[in-house]
């Protein structure tokens, strides 16, 4: 019997990451360096937000969770479980692209592992979004490679962005001490540590091809806290903005 509390914990952190990353991606709509990138980031924003919606629905339909809209648009900041990586403002395109690269590979290894999950809704969802994630990582890999190789400036920007984001990205795999063991024992998913290593195996070859240096991960302190409800100062304003209209009247239909 899978523990509901453990599953809920896992779903919320996955969904919150998707929602906030999608929100950040959507902020590029209309502002990208080329129109084609505007379109790419908007498209990925829709996918990410769609994943979050699907996960909140799983929570709602299988585990007694709240209505997805109310859960996403009305929850106080301390109840969010997203990682600090996704909370960070977009900054420049270099930061956003590197975050997209690191996040999407992390997401991919996670959903791949869920294809054989003992929790059936995960199997269905991960199969459904596999095709989307393929394009997200394809896009990230292509741009990381192109920008790193085409010019000195591009290379410097990509390496700096990698240095700035790597500890945040490692924080995506923050262990959830209370529930992780149970979920691993029940074969719901392989656990954060295992996913972290699979993730490194994915990003390393791309970075090598791009001639980028992955910092020594033994010297990096992953940025934890998000999974326990401790957030950067960037999350509260983001949530306030996201709920601005919805919270004018939470009983009304919009």
């Amino acid at each position, binding site marked *: 019997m899978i523990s509901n509390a453990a599953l809920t914990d896992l779903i919320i952190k996955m969904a919150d990451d998707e929602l906030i990353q999608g*929100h950040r991606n959507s902020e590029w*709509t*209309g502002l990208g*360096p080329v129109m084609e990138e505007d379109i790419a980031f908007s*498209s990925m*924003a829709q996918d990410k937000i769609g994943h979050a919606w699907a996960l909140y629905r799983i929570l709602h339909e299988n585990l007694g969770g709240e209505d997805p809209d109310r859960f996403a648009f009305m929850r106080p900041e301390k109840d969010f479980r997203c990682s600090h990586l996704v909370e960070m403002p977009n900054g420049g395109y270099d930061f956003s692209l590197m975050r997209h690269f690191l996040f999407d590979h992390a997401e991919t290894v996670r959903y791949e592992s869920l294809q054989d999950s003992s929790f059936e809704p995960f199997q269905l969802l991960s199969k459904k979004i596999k095709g989307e994630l393929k394009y997200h990582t394809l896009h990230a890999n292509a741009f990381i490679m192109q920008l790193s*190789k085409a010019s000195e400036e591009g290379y410097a920007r990509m390496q700096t962005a990698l240095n700035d984001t790597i500890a945040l990205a490692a924080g995506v795999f923050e262990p959830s001490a209370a529930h992780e063991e149970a979920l691993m024992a029940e074969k719901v998913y392989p656990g954060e540590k295992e996913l972290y290593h699979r993730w490194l195996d994915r990003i390393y070859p791309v970075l090598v091809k791009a001639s980028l240096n992955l910092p020594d991960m033994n010297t990096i302190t992953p940025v934890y806290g998000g999974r326990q409800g401790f957030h950067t100062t960037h999350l509260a304003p983001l949530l306030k903005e996201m709920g601005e209209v919805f919270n004018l009247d939470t009983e009304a239909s919009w």
Partner: protein
Amino acid sequence: MYGGGYIFDEPNGKQLREEQLHDDPEKLVAFEERITRGEKIEPGDWMPAEYRRQLIRLIEQHAHSEIIGALPEGTWITRAPGFKRKLALIAKVQDEIGHGQLLYNAAETLGKSREAMINDLLSGKSKYSNVFNYPAKTWADVTVIGFLIDAAAIVNQVANAKGSYGPYCRALERICYEESFHLKQGHDAFIELATGTPEQKAMLQDALNRWWQPIMHFFGPPDKTSQHSEKLMQWKVKMASNDEMRNQFLDSYVPKIWELGMTLPDPALHKNPDTGRWEYTDPDWNEFFRVINGGGPCNAERLQVRKWAEEEGRWVRKALMNPTERRSLPVA
């Protein structure tokens, strides 16, 4: 969206060269006969210099309107209430940027590069639809834009899709197809507010009141004062007159607005049963020209945002333009 019904004259009218002023008369006759027969003109075909110039101007302004038009609605993506609205709005604004891309491509077939068009937008030489120089103050504004501005644009674009220049017509056909979905999402969100709580209705009424004049301006000044239309109509660059399109829009959408119990801020607005045409108070055309010439509430802001995007993205575009260039690694 977002093609403006009205095509502005560029402020610095450069003198045309001699051969541009005098097209080969035989070729011109053959060209005009093709248009009369309903043939499409394609990029490699002979065309009068003025036809090319006017088309570039038309398509370029349409393209600019798409990418600038993404901005007022785009600012509401992060605030859209609920998953359904949020996803629909991102998808919609994304489509508009895609339309910009299609249209820049169509204009490029006439010999002006995307970069040159964007430069002219940023320098103020080339215009975009006036309607986007107004702010979207509340969520209700987004529904009014999505419903009525998109509807107005469709009237304009359906007409232009029957024009004479092949690449533009084909781009418009695809655009109109997507626009009809936008109109549906705008209408749906509009109805939600119109049939909602008293606060939601008040919010919508306020937005309608503020947007009515820009919407009436959308199709451009009345036919009696509009210049240089005749030749453009003959060449099927312009397919319907400003008043014609405005009337068509009013005929289709005013009843829909009234049906929902909303009002429009023009007591004179009514359909004349004898003529079958709509009558209305002329909107303030001085205001229209004031806004075109940079005096609107958002002109500076819109261009500033675009300039930011261009400047911030320059290093990316430069890197993308060197697909084969390899950065050489230092030896040590």
